[in-house]
């Protein structure tokens, strides 16, 4: 179960040193996202425009039973989710948004039975689009397993009825 589930305030489970960011994320109602909970993705840390997560190796998440390497799709979901977190951390608030596109480059296979860390940086926010890069790695982002590059679209006026409070902070990078 993820640390930001209904019972655990997100800001207590995640390292947020920036006081403004911590205040912004402490206010949010925190609900669980079924797929990220099923994969066991955990947020570790937030900074302005940056987010860190991890996902543990699991036998049922393997993409090739001959090698035991975790499936590319798990990295896609984890990177997407981390990128969504970086967008929220750049905005400093919860805004509904969806992934417009996401490119993943695979540099090398992940090592079986080791957890994977992801870092994402939202480096540009425009009125409606946020641009993000992400890295998946074991030890250091300088030796990536995979990198991601994506664009997220902030939902506009037509989504005024969207229930942000109910959807929670990580209703991001999603859908």
């Amino acid at each position: 179960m993820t640390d930001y589930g209904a019972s655990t305030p997100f800001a207590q489970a995640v390292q947020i040193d920036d006081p403004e960011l911590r205040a912004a994320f402490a206010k949010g109602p925190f609900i669980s996202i079924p797929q990220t909970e099923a994969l066991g993705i955990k947020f570790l840390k937030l900074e302005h425009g940056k987010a860190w997560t991890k996902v543990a190796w699991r036998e049922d998440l393997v993409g090739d039973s001959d090698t035991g390497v975790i499936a590319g799709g798990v990295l896609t979901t984890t990177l997407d989710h981390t990128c969504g977190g970086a967008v929220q951390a750049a905005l400093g608030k919860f805004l509904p948004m969806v992934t417009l596109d996401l490119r993943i480059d695979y540099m090398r296979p992940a090592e079986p039975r080791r957890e994977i860390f992801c870092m994402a940086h939202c480096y540009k926010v425009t009125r409606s689009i946020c641009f993000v890069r992400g890295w998946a790695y074991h030890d250091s982002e300088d030796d990536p397993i995979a990198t991601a590059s994506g664009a997220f679209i902030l939902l506009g006026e037509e989504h005024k009825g969207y229930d942000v409070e109910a959807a929670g902070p990580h209703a991001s990078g999603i859908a």
Partner: protein
Amino acid sequence: MDDALKPDAVAASIARIPYARFLGIDFEVKGDELTLVMPYSEHLLGRPNPPALHGGVIGALLEIVAIAQVTATSGVKRAPKTIDVTVSYLRSGRPVDTYARAHISRLGRRIANARAEAWQSNRFDPIATLHGNFLLRADEP
């Protein structure tokens, strides 16, 4: 030349992906056409309210259909390695069954270039598309 895909070979290639089972993915083969089916399940959601499938899950389905199509078409037993994939999200994935098919644009000696589409109720109204490059791995002698 008979281009029909062998259902047994497709089943074997998907059986080697435990993560496909985690997603609940099944498949259908008709002649040379392979369709993956991902039945709706609550754990696939990325947003509970209003419900929408997680984009990562849709990307994963597209990558798996491309890998399965490349494996079945190339006749190589070992799954190809993904080099890169780009997923475009066209509309939100509703909480219903999702389907995916892939088309190989070029099958070279080392690289396969593929495109894939995922849709729900309407085959011609895709919810997401993928294009990607895959590195073929020769079977060990």
